[in-house]
């Protein structure tokens, strides 16, 4: 990668240009508007029943009709998602460090991790309800279960991918294991950690909804189940849109954090 192409993509000390901003925000927005327009057109042209596929207007109506209620449910789901995700990050990263640091521990833990990850999470959901009731706890645990694996795998991979020359470099200065870890190995793994976190955050919302489907008295997943029972499809759609928004906001929040903390990483645009 030459410095010239880099300079064009990200000048040393200048923000994105107006044109960059337009393509960054304009294009996704354009895509969104197009899809909504198509959706609207389809419901009108084929005169589809509202309880089968509501039009965008119906969905907005449903949202406005119960805005307070829906926001409260959104908040519940968002909290479950974020708490489960943070828990997975806080526990997953140190476990990845152990795996990357010791062949012995890797051999012990890795197969176990693979086995646990292979279990379909939806199968665990009812058991979690039996164990922990209808409160937030089983949801947080479910989110945790979905997030944990990608975070551990990515972090461990990152920690093990230190280039030999960098490892040898710090060794040639007689660095201790701690120094080598904090000066080189860990910072070097950070972009990879971010990959794990971004994969996990997309799964996190799914985890929360799965758990809410199985047994809950609040949350957007609960709303969807309820509205399905009463054929209130517009409300279900409104909930799904909110779920989508949660996902997008969380994902781009993480991306923004990455750009802020790891401006050196190749991944970043």
């Amino acid at each position, binding site marked *: 990668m030459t410095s010239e192409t880099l300079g064009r993509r990200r000048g040393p000390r200048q923000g994105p240009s107006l044109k960059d901003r337009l393509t960054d925000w304009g294009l996704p927005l354009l895509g969104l508007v197009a899809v909504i327009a198509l959706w609207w057109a389809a419901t009108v042209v084929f005169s589809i029943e509202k309880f089968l596929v509501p039009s965008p207007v119906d969905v907005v109506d449903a949202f406005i009709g119960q805005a307070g209620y829906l926001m409260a449910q959104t908040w519940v789901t968002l909290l479950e998602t974020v708490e489960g995700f943070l828990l997975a990050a806080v526990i997953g990263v140190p476990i990845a460090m152990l795996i990357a640091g010791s062949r012995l521990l890797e051999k012990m833990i890795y197969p176990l991790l693979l086995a646990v990850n292979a279990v379909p999470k939806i199968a665990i959901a009812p058991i979690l309800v039996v164990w922990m009731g209808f409160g937030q706890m089983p949801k947080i645990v479910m989110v945790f279960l979905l997030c944990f694996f990608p975070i551990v795998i990515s972090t461990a991979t990152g920690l093990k991918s230190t280039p030999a020359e960098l490892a*040898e*470099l710090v060794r040639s*200065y007689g660095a201790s294991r701690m*120094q080598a870890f904090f*000066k080189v190995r860990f910072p070097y793994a950070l972009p990879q950690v971010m990959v794990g976190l971004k994969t996990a955050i997309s799964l996190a919302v799914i985890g929360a909804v799965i758990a809410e489907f199985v047994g809950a008295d609040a949350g957007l997943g609960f709303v969807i189940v309820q509205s399905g029972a009463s054929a209130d499809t517009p409300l279900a759609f409104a909930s799904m849109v909110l779920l989508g928004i949660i996902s997008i906001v969380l994902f781009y929040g993480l991306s923004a954090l990455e750009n802020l903390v790891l401006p*050196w990483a190749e991944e970043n645009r």
Partner: protein
Amino acid sequence: MIELRHVSQVFSGRQGEVHALDDINLEVDGNEFVTLVGRSGCGKSTMLRMIAGLLKPTSGTITVAGEPVTKPRQDVSFMFQRAALLPWRTVLDNVMLPVEILRLDKAVHRERAHELIELVGLAGFEKRLPRELSGGMQQRVSLCRSLIQNPKVLLMDEPFSALDALTREELSVELQRIKMEQETTIVFVTHSIEEAVLLADRVVVLSPRPGRLRKIVEVDIPRPRTLGHNAHADRVTEVSAELHELLVPAPAGGAA
């Protein structure tokens, strides 16, 4: 300054043993510039890594400044073929890395870091990230980093081989200048005969499989030396021819 006595290195790999180096005896004086040439795989990197204390010889002893080498020493610096900069650190912070690891005085060495950065012509780039630099500039940063703690010995493993010919010569000249300004013993591995002659007081020629010391060629050409026009072109040609003969034996056999 550096002494190798009956040094051998045998690697036991999957396909049996590899005799990387066999009974090497070599003495390098203080402030001397020795270049190490030889065909690929004849053990040049291995020799350097042993002197650096990164690798233990299978047999024989190595001493630096009179002390046996058992682990990396603070006064020995290693410079690699690739710049090996930390991508998240600025130029200045990369140069300061050894200071942090060795827990030396930061204020004093920051001064020195600025001096070195200026010396290699990178003044004004202190706050840049490695990705914003060209390959040649990165290698200059790497050079500064290997000089920051004032090493007595500088071990360089094909440090300029990834660069284009002009940058390479420029850096070679700079290295000679830096060496004149501060006393350092340098062992420099290269594949380029030109570079070996340009830089060295003595050229050590290794022969492959097993790596043996084939010959030591004295280069008695006055400094500073450049490759372009100079008064000693005849002598340079002569030494180069001799090295060429040693490195590229007459036909028949000898895979690269």
